[in-house]
């Protein structure tokens, strides 16, 4: 599983040569959606909308990254590229977790800035909110991304929809199981009144011990989820045949 940085650099280079136009177009679409969403919504407080749209773009992205695996000839082309399976997974992790996230942040910020300008011209001096963002949300988004990443390798077609479908099904089964456990035993594993807070709050003096335990366990589960799904993605790619 030793990786060669040169192969990763070559994979990144090949990706950018093939995809820079599509990516630029998608980032432009995102900025436009954020801008017009704000105008149609009629309010300058549109951070949540920008965040939602960016998340949708981000969760769909892995399907594009692994689109070559979803039909016969492109699959042979992709699997035969001289780079190891781990290098291919790591390259796509870099693209999804860093490059595309940065692109989305920049383009949605651009959309927000243009919207802000629009409202300013209209005489509305709204607050430009883009930095007030809970860090535990970042972890949640990355954890969800890792699930979609795995789904895009695991499923053969309509990978995003299939991941959502299976994810909902599993969530429902787990929710039922937890509800049943609580109903039968009358207990809950989550301490009363505990909420999922950000890192700063969790590790501050304001947090009680149950809060600290709940949040720390939450962070650990999310982090383990991220690692788990990327390792699964690697194993799945390793087992993929053409």
């Amino acid at each position, binding site marked *: 599983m030793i990786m*060669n940085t040169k192969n990763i650099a070559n994979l990144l*280079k090949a990706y950018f040569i093939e995809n820079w136009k599509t990516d630029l177009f998608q980032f432009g679409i995102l900025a436009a959606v954020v801008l017009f969403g704000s105008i149609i919504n009629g309010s300058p407080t549109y951070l949540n909308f920008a965040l939602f749209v960016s998340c949708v773009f981000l969760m769909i992205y892995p399907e594009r990254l692994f689109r070559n695996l979803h039909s016969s000839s492109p699959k*042979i082309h992709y*699997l*035969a590229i001289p780079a190891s399976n781990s290098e291919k997974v790591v390259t796509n992790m870099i693209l999804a977790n860093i490059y595309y996230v940065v692109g989305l942040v920049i383009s949605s910020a651009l959309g927000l800035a243009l919207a802000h300008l629009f409202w300013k011209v209209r005489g509305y001096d709204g607050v430009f909110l883009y930095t007030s963002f809970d860090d535990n949300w970042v972890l949640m988004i990355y954890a969800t991304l890792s699930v979609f990443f795995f789904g895009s390798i695991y499923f053969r077609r309509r990978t995003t929809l299939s991941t959502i479908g299976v994810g909902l099904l599993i969530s429902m089964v787990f929710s039922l199981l937890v509800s049943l456990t609580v109903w039968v035993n009358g207990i809950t594993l989550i301490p009363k009144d505990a909420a999922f807070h950000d890192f700063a709050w969790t590790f501050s003096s304001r947090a009680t011990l149950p809060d600290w335990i709940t949040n720390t366990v939450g962070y650990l589960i999310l982090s383990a989820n991220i690692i788990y799904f990327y390792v699964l993605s690697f194993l799945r790619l390793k087992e993929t045949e*053409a």
Partner: protein
Amino acid sequence: MIQLENIQFGYVKSRPLFKELSLTMEPGHIYGLLGKNGAGKTTLLKIMSGLRFPDGGSATIMGENASLRKAEVLQNLYFLQEEMFVPHLRIDEFEKAYAPFYPNFSSEKFAEYLREFELDREFGYMDKLSHGQKKKVLIAFALATNTKVLIMDEPTNGLDIPSKSTFRKLMASAADESRLVIISTHQVRDLHSLIDMVAILDNGHMLLNASSFEITEKLLFDMDNMKSAEGKIFYTEESPRGNYQVKENVNHIDSTLDLELLFNAAISKKNEISNLFK
């Protein structure tokens, strides 16, 4: 260089495609892999390249387990598919994107091969080219990678007549002692002069794996007993010019290997031909 040992494989468990198939291929040769439709030629090429995993047995390439698809192995292996995939890129962009993966890639050779096929780097988007033109670009790229193993699945399908001759010329110039070329084909007449090793796949086994020299040593390709009336006849094919024959070469007479006749003889007299080369 490529070693398949006791390979077992089947898309459906009840109908195995390969049963204990073994084959060794060495550098310095151009192998012609022949077989009927559905014999598993493409699957066998995929197993050699690590794109399919056998159910049993082992497939090694350059001493490594093919299924691991190690980067160092893939850098020295190019697989030219029959159903080609070309991204939405111009030829020069394709070269920029994929040539860096192959340490021995020669940009000059690529340009030269493209010229031979009457193409150039500025020819436009690859996915907009005709089937034959796409094939030419990928053949030129495959040869320019200078990989130790070059696997080609039906490379002449879709090529026009002059291009087939260009293909033979380029292949002859690109083959050397360090390179192993495997060509799977039905168009045996196109590659007749090129192939120096013949491997015939039939019913899950290698029916024959021999050099063209060995084949013409043991088999005589004759017409109406013109060269010899002796030797057991394995296959006869009628034609307006006379009867083509494949027979045992008891008197070691020189003849020219005809791949189509050989294939038909091997398929019609499996055991006898197979035993002759054991």
